[in-house]
């Protein structure tokens, strides 16, 4: 399997305060295509920092980060935005859909940013929303949907740009267990059937249980990296 994400001696030091904070102290990591990986660890372990750097939202202080073979730490701000748009799908804890757009428009929006043709946008939007089980809620705005439905739209939106991988920051944290379970089922199915790569940060034991690979971070270092047979 090809390597999608690779970090080498990744360090991040926050030096805004009087005492610099070492959020990451040298993380070496490889994520391959088709993995379903959970990054876990206690609060302050560096999960979110690692995810932000992998997602091109933040830059490392030292070390190397490459996504699909591209050293993203050295891209300019605009190049990085363009890179994220084309290569990374984001799913956030609080869904973060655009409140004034319908489910269909939210999914289509990312493809509009990519200047895809109208036909392709419509076809892909409908297919994705059907895929996440929301074919009948296409014209609903986020405020008219439950948390679980909104997170499904967020997954569809993340997939719409045909990214190399999906980065999900605690995607089940705001969902009840039934909804979380169903969302996980859906993502696992996508991973199994279509080979979509997922990287999560999570505290949720339900996610951790079902992940195929679990990376545990402690004090900014990888404490364990467990690959499970499914």
């Amino acid at each position, binding site marked *: 399997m090809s390597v999608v994400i690779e970090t080498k001696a990744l360090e991040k030091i926050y030096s805004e305060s009087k005492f610099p904070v070492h959020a990451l102290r040298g993380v070496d990591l490889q994520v391959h295509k088709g993995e379903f990986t959970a990054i876990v660890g206690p609060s302050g372990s560096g999960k979110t920092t690692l995810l*932000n750097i992998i*997602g091109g*939202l*933040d830059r490392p202080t030292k070390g190397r980060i490459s996504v699909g073979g591209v050293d993203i730490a050295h891209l300019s*701000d*605009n190049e990085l*935005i*363009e890179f*994220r*748009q*084309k290569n990374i799908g*984001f799913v*956030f804890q609080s869904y*973060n859909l*655009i*409140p*004034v*757009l319908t489910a269909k*428009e939210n999914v*289509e*929006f*990312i493809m*509009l*940013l*990519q*200047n895809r043709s*109208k036909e392709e946008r419509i076809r892909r939007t409908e297919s994705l929303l059907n895929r996440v089980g929301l074919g009948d809620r296409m014209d609903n705005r986020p405020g008219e949907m439950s948390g679980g439905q909104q997170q499904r739209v967020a997954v569809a*939106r993340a997939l719409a*740009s045909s990214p190399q991988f999906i980065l999900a920051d605690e995607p089940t944290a705001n969902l009840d267990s039934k909804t979380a379970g169903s969302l996980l089922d859906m993502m696992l199915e996508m991973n199994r059937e279509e080979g979509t790569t997922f990287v999560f940060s999570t505290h949720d034991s339900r996610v951790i249980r079902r992940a195929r690979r679990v990376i545990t971070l402690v004090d900014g270092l990888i404490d364990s990296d467990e690959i499970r047979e499914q």
Partner: protein
Amino acid sequence: MGAISSLLVLSWRNIWRNKRRTAITIASIAFAVFFATILGSIQKGAWDNTVDNVVKFFHGYLQVHKEGYSEDRTINKAFPLTEELLQAGSMDGIDGTAPRLESFALASYKQYTKGALVIGTDPTNEDKMTDLKNRLVEGQYFDKSRDEAMIGEGLAKYLNMGVGDTLVLIGQGYHGANAAGKYPIVGLLKFGSPELNKRMVYLPLSTAQYLYSADGLVTSLALIPSSREVAERLEPGLKSKLSEIGYEVEGWQDMIPELVQVRELDTIGAIVITMILYAIIAFGIFGTILMMTAERRYEFGVLVSIGMRRWKLALMVWMEIIFLALIGVLIGFLLSYPVVLYLHHYPITFTGEAAAAFEKFGTEPIMPASLSLSVFVRQVLVVFLVTAVLACYPIININRLKVVEAMRS
């Protein structure tokens, strides 16, 4: 839906996310436009009316003189009405001409004598240009075929004479010739300005030419344009064309520079008041923009993180603000237009001392509102400029946005 049209849709929907705040912002813009438009319309309308009154009253919008007359207004600079000049009077946009011979003379009746300004003119054209017949308060309008005079009622009062009495004029004619004549008074005129009331004597043109030994000569040829705008458009061309053959053309602004200066001062005053009004409103709009930017910091972070270019995000926010401004301007216009229209047809009318003050300057005591498009266009430009400047704040904010920090907020 293209990328830009989708941003338009997004902007339009975004402004209705907080309906109450949007309503307050739009109302404040509409309020500013409403008052600024009415203020601007009345200010422009009142001045246009004053200028029209003063210009129409005496000068006309365009006058042709012999070169140097504006510096030295003497009868010795009288000139014949040549073919070229008459051609200028028949060009497109010029409805006619009013030739005049102007000079000074001593006006006398019995033991009373006073200096007077004698205007020799064509009665029909003069009336067409200055509405002179309407100023007649006693007697009848003068006839070009008779040697008769009309005088200001102030002068008649000073000389203690009336209609039917004979006025004696004594002065100096063309190139020092003696000028003396006796003219029966057929009508008394009333001018707003007391000064003019005490000085004006009107004679038929041929009578004045005979009096001043200036047969076939005039000191000015007033052109009667179809409107002030036409006069202003034709003025530069006429100036260059006629200067080549030894004439000067004076526009209304050249003839009454004092009035132009007072108008400019007054306009600056009105602009300052309008600017203060807009500044107050601008702070209100800025408050909305500040709140909106602070509230949506997280959302901006999300949009940039999923791959929305900053300029597109800034454009979206800018369009939101412009939408607010346009709706506000539109409502402001819709509210102000009926008021402006009403004040145009039924101007504010002054009575008593205020009316007397207007009349003193020879203008009607009214303040009509102007329907000029420029007043409305100016409001659009000002509101657009103000909001465009204010929109810089979120644009700068978006450009400086640190995605991780924004999403932590």
